[in-house]
């Protein structure tokens, strides 16, 4: 079992990772629209510890925390996001296209497209006859894509070991969830695909861990697919550069006040598992480590232009 203190540790790393990414935007080291998940750390950290290397995880455009939760090398991720040849994909992917085949981790910039991919992973477990679990993380916007429906239906028919974790941050860019979804929650739709469905407070890392862990366990035991909906809020614009005028200042400040890191820190303090100073110190330590990682990544080279034509096809042997 992962403790709250450990989960808090994940959250701190996740937050600092995102803050490090932000540094690359004004400097144009990252020359595309960066999506951070600041405010959604309790979900990423809630997932941590349940997945084995042979479990798979597919993620989205807002994927950094999921990579960290899956155990993907953070430096390699950061280097990919900073467009370095030392990156997870040698700089060919960019921040929306992270692949770690050893950990069965992948992402896509196409909303909803990861869910069928995860069903493929789940089908592989079925074909092998082992107990690997496939996890797909998507945003609330993805649940209205055709891909989501086709994938979940297939998983439901075959009772596949699939967990779909929906990060419901209430917005898909400027479109609020209630104007996009016919139902007030995602979880209540689960029975349409013979899935188990549950909804949790995604700012509460232990609530997420409980729900996610139970779903993974169910899938592993052959209990079939689940949808875990975790409510949350993204603290920044959809991408860096988004004027974010579609959300009221009132809403934003009210929701930012519910910082999952603070919530977890408070719980640790309340339970006597850490003092405020210790919390600060932990954050400071990670901040320093992250700054070092960032500095080191920044010193790396961009991929060599002459390599740009590689990897379209496999080299002819």
């Amino acid at each position, binding site marked *: 079992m992962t403790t709250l203190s450990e989960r808090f540790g994940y959250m701190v790393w996740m937050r600092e990772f995102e803050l490090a990414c932000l540094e690359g935007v004004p400097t144009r080291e990252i020359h595309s629209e960066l999506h951070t998940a600041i405010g959604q750390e309790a979900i990423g950290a809630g997932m941590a510890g349940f997945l084995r290397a042979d479990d798979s995880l597919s993620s989205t455009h807002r994927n950094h925390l999921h990579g960290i939760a899956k155990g993907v090398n953070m430096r390699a991720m950061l280097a990919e996001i900073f467009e370095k040849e030392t990156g997870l994909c040698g700089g*060919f*992917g960019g921040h929306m296209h992270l692949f770690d085949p050893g950990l069965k981790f992948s992402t896509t910039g196409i909303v909803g497209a990861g869910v069928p991919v995860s069903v493929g992973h789940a089908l592989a477990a079925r074909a092998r006859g082992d107990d690997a679990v496939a996890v797909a993380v998507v945003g609330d916007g993805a649940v209205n894509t055709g891909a989501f429906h086709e994938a979940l239906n297939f998983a439901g028919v075959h009772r596949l070991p699939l967990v779909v974790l929906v990060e419901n941050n209430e917005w898909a*860019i400027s479109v609020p969830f209630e104007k996009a979804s016919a139902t007030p929650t995602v979880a209540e739709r689960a029975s349409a695909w013979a899935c188990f469905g549950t909804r949790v407070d995604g700012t509460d890392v232990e609530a997420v861990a409980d729900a996610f862990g139970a779903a993974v366990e169910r899938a592993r035991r052959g209990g079939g697919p689940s949808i875990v909906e975790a409510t949350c809020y993204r603290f920044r614009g959809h991408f860096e550069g988004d004027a974010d005028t579609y959300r009221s200042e009132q809403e934003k400040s009210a929701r930012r006040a519910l910082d999952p890191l603070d919530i977890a820190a408070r719980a640790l303090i309340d339970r006597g598992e850490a003092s405020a100073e210790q919390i600060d110190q932990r954050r400071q330590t990670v901040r320093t480590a992250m700054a070092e990682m960032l500095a080191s990544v920044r010193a790396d080279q961009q991929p060599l232009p*002459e390599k740009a034509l590689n990897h379209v096809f496999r080299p002819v042997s």
Partner: protein
Amino acid sequence: MGRNLNISQCVAEALTLEMHRDDRVMVIGEDVGRQGGVFGATRGLHKAFGDLRVVDTPISETAITGMGVGLAMEGYRPVLEIMFVDFIGVCLDQVYNAIAKNHYMSGGRVTMPIVIKTAGGCIGSGAQHSQCLWGLFAHLPGLKVVAPSNPYDAKGLMAAAVESDDPVIYIEHKGLLLSRADDFTFGNDVPEGRYTVPIGQAAVIRPGTHLTLATLSGTVLPAFAAAERLASEGIDVEVIDLRSVVPLDVATVAQSVEKTRRLLVVDEDYLSFGLSAELVTRVLEAGVSIRSFSRHAVPDVPIPGALSLERAVVPNQSSIEGAIREVVARP
């Protein structure tokens, strides 16, 4: 010149005028309403025309395009937004099997006056957010395809697209949408009133005698700059902005090549099985004898993430200069 609008504003202005002119015009897509489009190209429409005519949708491109078909059959003239052209793969079926074919399959009884407004082009977002794909649409009969390069055309082609009784794929270039009129040496004078730029007509942006350079969308500006630059070296390039891919204005290009005898096609879309070969072939089929031709396009490779790699595969001013020099230097 006066109004220093950016291209998004030109598009929004065109849509506003069309919606005032014709109350059958509706705008439907993700973030087109309250947000006014992720690039601002539908700004002001929701306020002016309300929920019934400007519809924010879920992330459901098949629903968006399919609804367009039904609306068109009801006499509406939907403008459907697919945010990035890269996403067309989730809904191409409605586009090519219904929107493009219903007029034909119905023996002319049904019309599909639909605009699919989408953004293409490379701004550093990697393989899934950087494509142009006009070559893909152009291969599929029943679709007109336009891709403006400047503020004037952006407004006028949108008006023409909405006015068209045929379906039109209108591909904006993400790299141009926030450029202002003053950034342009051509097409920078945008009248306030309504006007159309005819679909299927290329424009000679710069006359020249040594080489015909045909291109469109985001590469017109760097091609023009390259031509200006090389003029000082005595290389006189005629730059043609194709503006439409379907119908392709072969006549204008052929006429130019009659004079220059050399043709360079610059294409930000993929090289093969696309615009460049079609244009070369059509000019030859028009009976024009070409001394030499060349194609400068994305060399059949997905758009890479890192800037260093991206620069290596996407045509830019310096690579265009190189391509011009190469063709002109041939015997």
